[in-house]
């Protein structure tokens, strides 16, 4: 590359390129976005891998995530501590999975994590109810919510345990023609 940048070493950029779906330019742009969120917290020099985490409240303030009803769950699924504090590694990981080039299986795994509110590796009725309420901004009546959740589980549940395991979810996702394009945030 022509321009000299001092944020990352070349080795680090290569590692990021291999581990995500971004090019060097995009990774540098991501870093500037990350830095914008909290200029006094995030160092400009990442060569010695500083341990800097941004809290959930700052991340969900980004314009790409601000209006998303699942923003909290998205950030929590990608954070290691489960509380939504993202380091730069996790930040890049999040947008890499949500980018256009991530394969369907990877997106399905993370979508499952996002919709699993109680983190028990199953999508039970309460998870679906919360998802539905977030989707429709609680405009459906409770009976309608109940009916829709029941029908959704009925449609997708293959092993008959009244909740969706990852296998059921993935099987349903393979039949969704536009899952890849809707589960995509452009940054």
């Amino acid at each position, binding site marked *: 590359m022509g321009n000299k940048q001092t944020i990352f070493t070349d080795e680090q950029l290569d590692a990021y390129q291999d581990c995500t779906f971004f090019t060097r330019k995009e990774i540098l742009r991501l870093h500037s976005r990350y830095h914008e969120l909290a200029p006094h917290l995030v160092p400009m020099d990442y060569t010695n891998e500083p341990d800097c985490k941004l809290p959930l409240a700052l991340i969900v303030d980004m*314009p790409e995530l601000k209006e*998303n009803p699942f923003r909290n769950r998205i950030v929590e699924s990608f954070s290691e501590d489960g509380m939504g504090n993202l380091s730069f590694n996790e930040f890049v990981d999040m947008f890499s999975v949500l980018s256009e*080039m991530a*394969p369907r299986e990877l997106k399905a795994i993370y979508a499952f994590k996002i919709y699993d509110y109680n983190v028990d590796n199953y999508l039970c009725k309460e998870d679906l109810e919360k*998802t539905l309420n977030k989707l429709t901004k609680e405009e459906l009546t409770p009976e309608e919510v109940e009916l829709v959740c029941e029908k959704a589980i009925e449609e997708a549940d*293959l*092993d008959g345990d009244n909740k969706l395991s990852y296998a059921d979810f993935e*099987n*349903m996702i393979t039949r969704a023609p536009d899952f890849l394009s809707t589960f995509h945030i452009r940054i």
Partner: protein
Amino acid sequence: MTIEQQRQGLAFSGSGHPTDQESLRFRRVSSRMSTQIYHEPNSSTSLAQEEEQSGSEPTLELRNTVFPMALKKAARQVQQMQVPAQFNGGSWKQKRIKFVRQFKSNVREFLYFFSLWGKTLQKIGGRNLVYASKQPQRLRPRWQTLLSLTGNFGGGVQSYFIFLRFLVILNFVSFLLIAGFVLIPSIVFRSVGIKPESSKADVSSECLKYDPNPQGLVVFYEFFLDLLSGTGFMEYSYLFYGYYNNSVIVTSLVGSHFSYNIPLAYLLTAVFYFAFCLICIIVRMGKAARVAVTTGGSDVRSYSMIVFTGWDYGCLGSKATKLKQRNIYYRLQVDLEEERLKKHAASLTLCNKVTLHSLRVLMFFVAVGLIVATFLAIARATTFSQENSHVPGILGLFYTYLPSIVITLGNFLVPLLCDQIALLEKYPPSATVVVALLRAVVLRLVSLGILLFTLWKQIMCHDSRDKCNLCHYNHEDYQCWETSVGQEMYKLTLFDLLVSIALLVLVEFPRRMVVDHWSCKLTQWVGRQEFVVPSNVLGLVYGQTVVWTGALFCPLLPLINTVKFVILFYCKKITLFYNCRPALRTFRSTSSAIFFLAVLLFGWILALVVMIYSVAVIHPSFACGPFRSFFRMWKIVPESFSTLPEGARDFLFFIGSQAFSIPLFAISCVFMCYFIALASIYGKSVAMLRAQLKLAGQDKQFLVKQIEKMKPLSPQHNEGEQD
């Protein structure tokens, strides 16, 4: 290990289908990471298989794994350290694979740049280009506001524009075909000075009269009238059939053997044009059908689809978000409404059912009556227009355009009335949509058929037999009947375009301005325009059918249609972005793609019937055109056939004979049976696998219950037994 960890292991090992062996392996002492690395290749099958097939060890595609970033980086370091220990070819292969992948993505981006209207289609559908993100920082906020303003119009609207693009390319390629084989040779031969041969048939000189050139002084506004109705200076030009000559060139100079038969070229080009369009439509239908089959139809599993894949994560801006939420709410309401209606219908008494069904039958007859009334109006208008075609001036122009006006009015009013009827019929929502579409399709295409039928009646003088005795067709009114038919098609195409532009300028823009700047109850109730996909697509199908019907008589019609569709694309795009609000009711694009192609195919069949009839049944004009000396247009083929060399003739006879066609038919039946059997086997294996999944889940539950049962019996023995 606790039950929780077991369940976690069972639910989350890489492949997602936990078996007993995997869960056992999972609980071994070896590090969790290494077992997960071992399992990961199962989940990223597509890319990992690429690596495996290349013969190297199953190297890991790190970006497809589910680890946190730190673990990925560590794994990468491990991989890098392993590389020098491997055979040198291994790392070279990895680099080559990476290079190929990068090259492919670059080529794809480059080709995308050249795809017609790619950016516009992406913007309409709401999906964003990958390389558009490389814009400099200062431009990005403005681009984002544009996106939030326009919102996401959805897949349905995008499918309309994709369909339009397909038709533009189809028309342009067909024009190239026609230009190459008919137009350019005609121009060349005419410029060289080859005169047309007069008809050798034994007919009176009455039939040979053809005088399209205007007499005397031409008033200047006549120019515009002629431009709009295809008469006057436009009639005797390359635009219409009548100008082409029946020149057959055979030169046998020393060394070169050039021969060109214009009538044969004309006919065969028309045949190949139809065949080419058919192949394009079928290929496209195949692609759409493949998508529809893999997604199993959009009706099934609608609730879970909406809940899990309904939200578009790329939605930006509060307005677009609210709209999306209302959209999802509306879709759920539609499904819930259908459930309610089903329950209601099941609970109706016999008396109610009888009244409902009789009401539906009555409304069906009312709709049929409306449609038949439109047909009668079109027939009457066509006859009237043909009788009064020689009236000069603006009134004459009105009379010539009368059929087009009546067709357009009918296509506008009758669907509106049918919508009102549908309110009384109370079908479930999905059935209402289908019924309305079917009615609109029948109306559009059959009205065109009625127009052509009326024209044919006049040309073959069904009403007044005496006019046709001399020349086998109505030579008094139609000295060159092919040109007249071509003119009708030309007028229909032109009128369609003019109406679209007029609607845009006179109705849609003012409507938006009124709604935006003058707020009262009425304007709010009317609201901004919605882009209604089905009626727009039917308009496109109608326009394309007109072009197919008229291509034999007006060879430049595909070119005119290309220009018309390009103008239409930009007009519709402008109206979409400025005048329309994003629709609350989204249109399902996957199943409708097949439906629109099927309707297009139906239009193609209609045009084919017209072509076959003109070529094989009606006598060509004596006074004009490439077929003036033939009894039927088709006769040129047997005549040229007899000039073929002996070998080719025998070969073609053999292909047409029974000795070849019956075995061919038998073999194609065998192939068809094979494919049907294959398809049914795949369907059965899918059902079987699904049942197996169910069984595996039940087995898992049974085993978990057994483990729980055994636990209180002997807590010390547990570890030993399970290991």
